[in-house]
């Protein structure tokens, strides 16, 4: 547990240090802080594997009074993922020539975002989650505004919707507290009954969280905010920030909600997930802009998470937990790669439109390769992290003939995601009318964009220990 706390505290302290002393070379300090945080996160994961879940009451108070932290395999994995992605994104921001203008303000905000995320993964307290969600929302909105005046509109929409979602969430939390007199997830799980107050509270909390996570049909703010943000920011937002509300949603419905409420709700959540897959995928196939395409692909891929969560609740099938969280981790890595590659390409051509990609195989082969490799995992090609997650999801669907329509849905979604990935890649192979300008396009930044895509394919090699980790948890 102490290692996890270190992983959370180091980014906070580094942010304050950067703000206070304002050294000339901030990037090294930030990279060192991210490395330390990553090492601590790995130690936390190892300790969970060794000695199982750990719990900590903050302030040493008894359980209903104190805020409780709990380290489980799932959130240990998420802490490591967060640290890995932050390290890669920070290195990318330091090495890319196109990120010079945002640097000064980017470092402290990114560090605060990192610390807040770890604080959210660790917490098991409904009100503390509200505070961490506020932190995430404010940090994310501030990061979006780094792109300058053109992003202000999207940032303001994001801020207002995020605040509205926070209030909805808070109202639900107040109702649960009023009814049961506790905010702790584990205690609530033993108390809840399927009455009207609980149902209303859970619906309010879910609506707030779904708005924050941009789950279909509450996703309308996401494409604008994520595509207008600076490249490293888009990667952080799409890979990590939208997953945080999903984590709370999962704990809430799988632990707190009584099964009389969870089973019918699961069906609706799964249906919404299906809607996200179809509409998100379709929009990604239609949009003329590169970064908007990647943002719509986030909407679609979040649908898999929602589908897994919904079916997990509807069929009361704990095996799907592994599918849900492997999806989240695989998508986080793949989407980081995609956004970094897309952003680097867009910044060097200076054009947003998809047809400006022509001839990219010659000028920026590594970036295009990174996009394609990451896309492979999003489609679910074997042997990638995305494939394992999809396999776990589709297995229980195939066993029972009554579940086949869901499998059909997943297959159509897969075809759609293949369509939008190839839409980008095929442009790269078209011959450019302009002769390829063989300028130096920031080689290291392109390789950094490729790194998470390679990691997501490596996940397949380590699928057995990963699945064991998840099994330990669900048992």
């Amino acid at each position, binding site marked *: 547990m102490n290692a996890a706390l270190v992983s959370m505290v180091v980014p906070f302290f580094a942010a304050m240090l950067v*703000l206070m002393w304002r050294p000339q070379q901030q990037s090294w300090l930030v990279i060192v802080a991210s490395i330390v945080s990553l090492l601590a996160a790995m130690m936390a994961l190892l300790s969970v594997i060794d000695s199982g879940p750990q719990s900590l009451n903050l302030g*040493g108070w*008894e359980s209903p009074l104190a805020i409780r932290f709990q380290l489980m395999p799932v959130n240990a994995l998420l802490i490591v993922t967060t640290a890995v992605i932050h390290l890669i994104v920070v290195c990318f921001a330091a090495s890319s020539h196109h990120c010079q203008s945002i640097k000064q*303000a980017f470092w402290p905000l990114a560090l*605060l975002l990192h610390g807040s995320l770890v604080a959210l993964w660790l917490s098991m307290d409904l009100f503390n989650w509200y*505070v961490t969600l506020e932190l995430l929302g404010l940090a994310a909105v*501030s990061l979006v505004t780094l792109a300058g005046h053109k992003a202000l509109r999207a940032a303001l929409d994001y801020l207002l919707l995020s605040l509205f979602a926070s209030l909805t969430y808070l109202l639900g939390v107040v109702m649960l507290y009023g*009814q049961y007199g506790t905010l702790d997830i584990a205690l609530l799980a033993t108390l809840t009954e399927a009455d009207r*107050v609980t149902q209303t509270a859970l619906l309010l909390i879910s609506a707030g969280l779904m708005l924050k996570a941009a789950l279909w049909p509450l996703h309308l703010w996401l494409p604008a905010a994520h595509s207008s943000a600076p490249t490293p920011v888009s990667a952080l937002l799409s890979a990590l920030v939208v997953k945080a509300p999903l984590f709370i949603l999962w704990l809430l419905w799988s632990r707190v909600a009584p099964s009389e409420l969870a089973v019918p709700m699961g069906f609706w959540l799964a249906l919404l997930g299906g809607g996200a897959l179809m509409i998100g995928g379709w929009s990604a196939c239609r949009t003329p802009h590169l970064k908007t395409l990647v943002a719509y692909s986030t909407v679609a891929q979040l649908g898999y998470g929602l589908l897994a969560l919904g079916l997990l609740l509807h069929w009361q099938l704990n095996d799907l937990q592994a599918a849900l969280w492997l999806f989240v981790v695989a998508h986080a890595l793949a989407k980081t790669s995609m956004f970094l590659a897309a952003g680097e390409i867009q910044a060097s051509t200076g054009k947003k439109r998809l047809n400006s990609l022509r001839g990219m195989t010659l000028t920026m082969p590594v970036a295009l390769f990174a996009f394609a490799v990451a896309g492979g995992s999003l489609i679910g090609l074997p042997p990638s992290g995305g494939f394992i997650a999809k396999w776990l999801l589709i297995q229980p669907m195939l066993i029972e003939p009554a579940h086949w329509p869901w499998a059909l849905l997943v297959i159509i979604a897969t075809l759609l995601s293949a369509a939008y990935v190839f839409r980008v890649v095929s442009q790269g192979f078209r011959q450019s009318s302009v002769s390829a300008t063989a300028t130096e396009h920031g080689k290291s930044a392109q390789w950094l964009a490729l790194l998470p895509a390679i990691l997501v394919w490596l996940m397949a090699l380590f699928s057995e220990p990963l699945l064991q980790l998840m099994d330990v948890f669900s048992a």
Partner: protein
Amino acid sequence: MAASELILDLILCLVLLSLAVAVVEVKRLYDSIILFIAFGLILSITWARLGAPDLALAEAAIGAGITGVLLMAAYANLAPKKHLQNSHRSWLAVGFSLAAMVWLVLSLIPLADSPESLVAVAEQAMADSGVTHPVTAVLLNFRAWDTLLELVVLLLALLGMQQLRLPSLKIAYPWPLLNAWGRYLAPLTIVIGGYLLWRGSSGPGGAFQSGALLAAGLIVLRLNHVIPGLSWQHAWLRCSVLCGAGFFLIIACLTAWLGQGWLDYPASYSASLIFIIEFLATISIAVTLAWLVTGQQEAAS
């Protein structure tokens, strides 16, 4: 007695509701802001009537005071043409809101007679908390982690505002009355703010209320040109903005490393630790809120 109290409560409810509708419905944005400040004050009286003096103080200082000044400062930056509210009314939205309200109120009715088990638990633990006021004990001991993160929220709000690179507040030459009043008001805010902070350990008060009051004093002084503009380039400003959350975080780490555990204060020091944390948090809150209103001042001026 009971009848007169009921009449007062009914009047409060009526005024609150009509002010809320008026804030949305008036045409000129300026009137809307004034009504919003009035709404905050009535809301603060309502909290006091409900037996929550801490909330009443916070609402008066932050909700009505600082938020009102922030809205005014934003209004001053608006282009002249945008001084009218959007008067387009959607009956669909009105109907939807009313339906949602009815649904919520119906679901809330069973809550009226549910037990509040945590109150009893908190009262039992009060003896070990180092303070005698339950709200302070919850904010700075039982759930200190929430308060620490709230201080980071405030820091993020400031960083977010910095990104917008708003023009600094144009301050007209103060008229004589403001000048004269400022001389009396500023020391008073320090005295009352200090009292609220000190009082926080045993009664209603504490860092947020006191910080908001001190911020008001700073803003008055700035409007009178008594103090120079607040600039992020100044080390003292960055130091005072960061000291609250920073010290809190250091204490958290020290208690985890050397003591019993994360934010577990040693029993003999908890009273003084809580006071130091509140003191530094007050400074952070005051300077941050004042900066949010007056905005970044260029170092040259």
